[in-house]
């Protein structure tokens, strides 16, 4: 009996330990981002003569994506993210890798018609849709 009591107490102690960890009720520990990575708060790059246009907020099953585009001299000068997906931890990790790549591709191609990033398809599509809507808006006076 004494052995059972010991096991029972050890088990309860173990469970309390496990459940006092923050991920044990469905929460994730946020990623520690490298310094140069995108910041959540939009800090639009100020470009002389630039014009800021917000894209549509695109809703998907993982959350909402919205971009803000800076147009300068008839070109897409910069893209920043206003809103991005918030659920599914592994997708978020992949998004951190995918979003900077998308931005680069868009700036190179000067259009929303670029390849989606594999592993982050849903985010890529939403990002490019929002971007396209911003481009459309910029062309309609």
């Amino acid at each position, binding site marked *: *009996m004494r052995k*059972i009591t010991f*096991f029972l107490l050890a*088990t309860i102690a*173990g*469970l309390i330990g*496990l*459940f006092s*960890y923050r*991920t*044990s009720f*469905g*929460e*994730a*520990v946020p*990623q520690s981002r490298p310094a140069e990575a995108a910041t959540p708060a939009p800090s639009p790059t100020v470009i002389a003569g630039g014009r800021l246009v917000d894209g549509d907020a695109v809703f998907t*099953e*993982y959350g909402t994506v919205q971009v803000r585009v800076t147009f300068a001299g008839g070109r897409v000068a910069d893209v920043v993210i206003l809103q991005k997906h918030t*659920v*599914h*931890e*592994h*997708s978020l*990790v*992949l998004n951190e*890798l995918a979003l900077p790549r998308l931005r680069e591709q868009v700036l190179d191609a000067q259009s929303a018609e670029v390849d989606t990033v*594999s*592993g982050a398809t849903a985010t890529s599509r939403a990002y490019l849709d929002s971007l396209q809507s911003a481009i459309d808006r910029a062309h309609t006076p």
Partner: protein
Amino acid sequence: MTPDRFPLPRPRDGAVGRTVTAVLACATLLVVLALWVTAGGVTELGTDGTGLVTVARLTGLTASDLLLLQVLAMARVPWVERAWGQDRLARIHRLLGFTSCWLMTAHVVLVVAGYAASTDTGVLAQSADLVVRYPGMLLAAAGTALLVLVVALSVRAARRRARYENWHLLHLYAYLGVGLALPHQLWNGAHFVTSRAATAYWWTLWGCAAAALLAFRVGRPLWLSRRHRITVDEVRHEASDVYSVYLSGRRLDGLSARPGQFLTWRLRTGRGWSRAHPFSLSEAPRKDRLRFTFRAAGDDGARLAGAVPGTAVLIEGPFGTLTEGRRRGERVLLMAAGIGITPMRALLEGMRYVDGELTLIYRARSADELVLRDEIDGIAAERGAQVIYLPGPPPTGRSSWLTAELAERHADHEALTRLVPELAARDVFLCGPPPWMAAARAALRTAGVPARQVHDERFGW
């Protein structure tokens, strides 16, 4: 057919229940597959990195489905018990257990490999990141460790070395393992995060397993014990180390126990009372009396044999399908060896038969060990049953259901046909040590008794 013939009961061998439960179990696996396919399981197979994760998802989902099925198989749900019998359920449970453990291992390896590949991270760093950062993953890691521990202890070699009670207590950690391991899939699985149907399905299955467990492994035994208030009347010494425990209680017919069945007994003798023992009823159950007979092997036997009148008894059951419900014809052969006589003694008393239709063969190592012999003689004389006692040591060198003396002169199957008239037309009920039962089954097969007429339960841990 004589005019006073009774109608034989329709065989209730649980075939319908087995089909229904097997179809349901397969249906859960199909649902899992369907969920996986609709979440893009097949289309994502081609992509590198994601392909591994997709396969990982399928193995993980299947593993947890099997884990829940295993819990349900061992939850002592009465109609599942009646359909399959506890011995078969235990074997299914064991098979599912090892299968789900391998699938779970594959899941872990594939997820880590797939995530590491898609984010360009090392395997170790990726594993640590998963456990530390992802929702529910610390719990899942602990749950996995517990499940692996339980499986490792259940490998035959390890199991033989442990005392049953200790092994069983540790085995209970599997429940904890399942409970801890499951939430992570709802919080990390891509299609659980995005699909209500998948989440609802999973919580339902999880809830059913938990509810069945609480209802039938905890609630029902407590309720039965309370309703029937069973207590020890007397402990009678039968022979060498064999004892019979006579029990009384209220409305015992309400238990619906049938001859050939067993219950799990907990005698509240003080220290050690929580240990449960499955023992067969050794006489047909009565309204006001139950009896079980057991061999006092091991240290706990002495505790049971020393139970004083008035000791309260907690019960689970009745369990077992070695009953008249399995019978297909009019003629019956009961074969018992050693303490395996107990359910056969109950069947001898409780079965329906007329003069000359039933034969009992009773093997023991010596004439002294033919326990319950007097009452068996009494019932046989009254009911017109034929009893053949075969006391004597078993032969050395070959496995046989016979005594050494008979085995020298007769082949196993030949002795059977000589002893028992119209053998091939009989339903045969077997109970004894597993090697003896194996030898008896082989002899029956050779003697031409169709397998569907041979009834036994194979326990042994």
